[in-house]
């Protein structure tokens, strides 16, 4: 226990030690977090009227982001399967990065749900035992289970492995591998359940499609690994941690195939909506072409689709894919386009037109945007902190033997460097 406490404090000091650029990065994140807290304080006082949502469009960018980040969390599993199940050496080295990303993404997803609640002080009503857990009828209770379960798994497995490495031991496979296998199934579970949250709304012709679950998985397995490639390139530039070209190549192949699957399903949906245009196609018509002069989402969706196709084409060409200077922007474009397509482009048009055919548009307010940025900043901070500790432990910069002294020396050096600069 004591050893674990030391591991924890040692890690915490690491998080707040770094170069000038690192401090600038942390400063930016904290500024955004403070902005988010300010925005939320307004929303808490005034109610959800501070957002752009209303009875017609009753979910906005909070739930859109929630859905997207559950996908990012599930995407981390694309490192876990090759590493633990196929025992790929390249992936074994970096698998913890995927799990760290899953933790950060889940933290964001859960926060997005909490800020979306009208009565956040009553959220305990949803918990088993002390509240009334409407299980198994309500899909939301399933989501509570799978998301928190996945969070625990992705915190516990890396913590155990890192803790062992920190003490210079090899982790015991018999202890952690069963949980890894469980987490693989769980990853599919979180995103399927989140898709079913929408699919279960039988009255909504836009969401109630059997294809939505697989589509969610495909887009998650494209967006998650795409983000991991971006993170890899940042780690390679800012630390001595080695990530081989081979690892990135393999990962970019995963992104490519997932992006194909995602596009195939997207086009299948589009075909269904537009070959025979019925009253049920109104949501898709609103999304792609606007309805009766309302088209707030249309330009974003077209930009996303174009971005998605171009990025997928770029990743498809081997020469381009193997060039990191092309791969990283392509991954960024893919990530952003899926963010729009699956978040904004899926949740909001589901409400337009409303259940009885009325068209009322939705635009997020500045309060909503502040809160959203704040949560994303918190997620990025979580990710930064986890990766920082991971890299420090894995490169041997901190360990139970002499790690603290090494760290103290490094801090001294960092402070001196800043004062001389």
């Amino acid at each position: 226990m004591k050893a674990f406490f030391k591991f924890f404090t040692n890690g915490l000091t690491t998080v707040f030690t770094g170069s000038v650029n690192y401090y600038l990065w942390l400063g930016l994140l904290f500024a955004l977090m403070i902005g988010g807290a300010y925005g939320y304080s307004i929303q808490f006082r005034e109610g959800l009227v501070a957002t752009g949502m209303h009875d017609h469009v009753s979910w906005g960018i909070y739930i859109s982001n929630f859905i997207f980040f559950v996908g990012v969390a599930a995407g981390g599993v694309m490192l876990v399967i090759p590493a633990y199940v196929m025992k790929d050496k390249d992936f074994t080295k970096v698998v913890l990065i995927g799990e760290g990303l899953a933790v950060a993404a889940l933290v964001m997803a859960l926060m997005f749900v909490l800020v979306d609640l009208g009565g956040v002080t009553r959220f305990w009503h949803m918990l088993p035992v002390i509240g009334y857990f409407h299980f198994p009828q309500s899909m939301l209770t399933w989501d509570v289970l799978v998301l928190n379960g996945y969070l625990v798994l992705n915190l516990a497995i890396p913590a155990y492995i890192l803790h062992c490495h920190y003490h210079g031991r090899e982790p015991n496979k018999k202890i952690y591998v069963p949980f890894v296998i469980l987490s693989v199934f769980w990853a599919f579970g979180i995103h399927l359940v989140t898709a079913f949250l929408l699919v279960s709304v039988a009255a909504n012709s836009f969401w109630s499609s059997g294809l939505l679950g697989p589509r969610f998985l495909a887009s998650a397995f494209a967006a998650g690994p795409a983000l991991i490639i971006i993170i890899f390139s940042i780690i390679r530039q800012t630390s001595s941690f080695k990530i081989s070209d081979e690892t990135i190549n393999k990962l970019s192949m995963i992104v490519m195939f997932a992006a194909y699957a995602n596009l195939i399903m997207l086009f299948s949906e589009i075909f269904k909506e537009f070959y025979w245009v019925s009253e049920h196609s109104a949501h898709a018509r609103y999304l792609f072409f606007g309805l009766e002069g309302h088209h707030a989402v249309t330009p974003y969706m077209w930009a996303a689709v174009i971005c998605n196709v171009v990025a997928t084409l770029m990743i498809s060409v081997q020469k381009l894919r193997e060039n990191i200077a092309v791969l990283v922007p392509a991954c960024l474009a893919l990530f952003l386009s899926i963010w729009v397509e699956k978040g904004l482009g899926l949740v909001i048009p589901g409400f337009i037109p409303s259940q009885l055919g009325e068209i009322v548009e939705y635009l997020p307010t500045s309060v909503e945007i502040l809160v959203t940025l704040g949560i994303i900043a918190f997620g990025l901070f979580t990710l930064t902190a986890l990766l920082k500790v991971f890299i420090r432990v894995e490169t041997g910069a901190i360990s139970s033997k002499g790690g603290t002294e090494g760290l103290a020396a490094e801090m001294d050096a960092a402070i001196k460097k800043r004062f001389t600069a």
Partner: protein
Amino acid sequence: MKDDSKKKGAGCNSCNSSENCFADMALKKKGSRRGALAALFGGAATAAASSAIAAASTEDEKELKRIKRDEIFQKYYRTMTEEERAKTIARFERKSKVQYGVDAHIDGTHARPNTLFGYAFNISKCEGSRKCVDACVTENNQDRTSGMQYIKLFEMEDGIGSVHGGDTEYSHEVPVEGKYYLGTQCFHCENPPCTKACPTGATWSEPDGIVVVDYNWCIGCRYCEAACPYFARRFNWKEPEVPSDEINPYQHYLGNRMRSKGVMEKCTFCIQRTRQGKQPACAEACPTGARVFGNLLDPDSEIRWILENKKVFRLKEDLGTEPKFWYFTD
């Protein structure tokens, strides 16, 4: 309600100056700090009077805070014992007095045996006057500032059957030649998607078929609002406001009692009226007799006669929600 306003009037007559009267009114009406402050900054009140007001006001403020704190830890209405329910209801009656100065009578009447409520709407008769909408808002203490309404009236072109082609925002003289009117509200489905979606069970079907919400158990996730195929649910995006003299004091815990921000609400077939054997406010207000409400289990009821003798239809029947709300023509 009338008694209450009389009391206010009496208070006015006993005042020495108009300023004091205003302060007195403000206190009686809201008992809020803002009211007391407005009186203080009015300036003309004597120091003694104003401090007395401030003292009384903070007393009320404190009590309101205490009530609101108790509300946070309130249990789920369905799992409460009868004793706990009575205590909870007493607390809300006290809250109404302290917060709005209204002597509310909050009812906890259970569903009556052999009762299943249903509704029929005559699209030949409705002329779109929206009298039902106004009556509903007044009866059910809906937020006046956001314009919340449970009932929607669609003005439809003759020959068009889907509400997607209807207009709810019409502001011209009615009825219009070549148009007909179709009203929607909560249909109190026998198989409601909203109650299934709710993660906390805060909304459910009562034995008499009314779909209700425990406003203090709802966490405001709005999943039910997305799940409802008929756009029947309304959310309190802000703190609802109803002027004290417009508050309907005859309330039901599961019906028209005052709500707070961040919770869902909806039509309850006027549970506070219908469980006492009265008609819902909308049916009573309808000038054309287009609205028929009654007990589906009573073979002699008018609604049963309509279901047996008229050609009826329901909205989106294909979804299997089994609405207890039928449309018919003459």
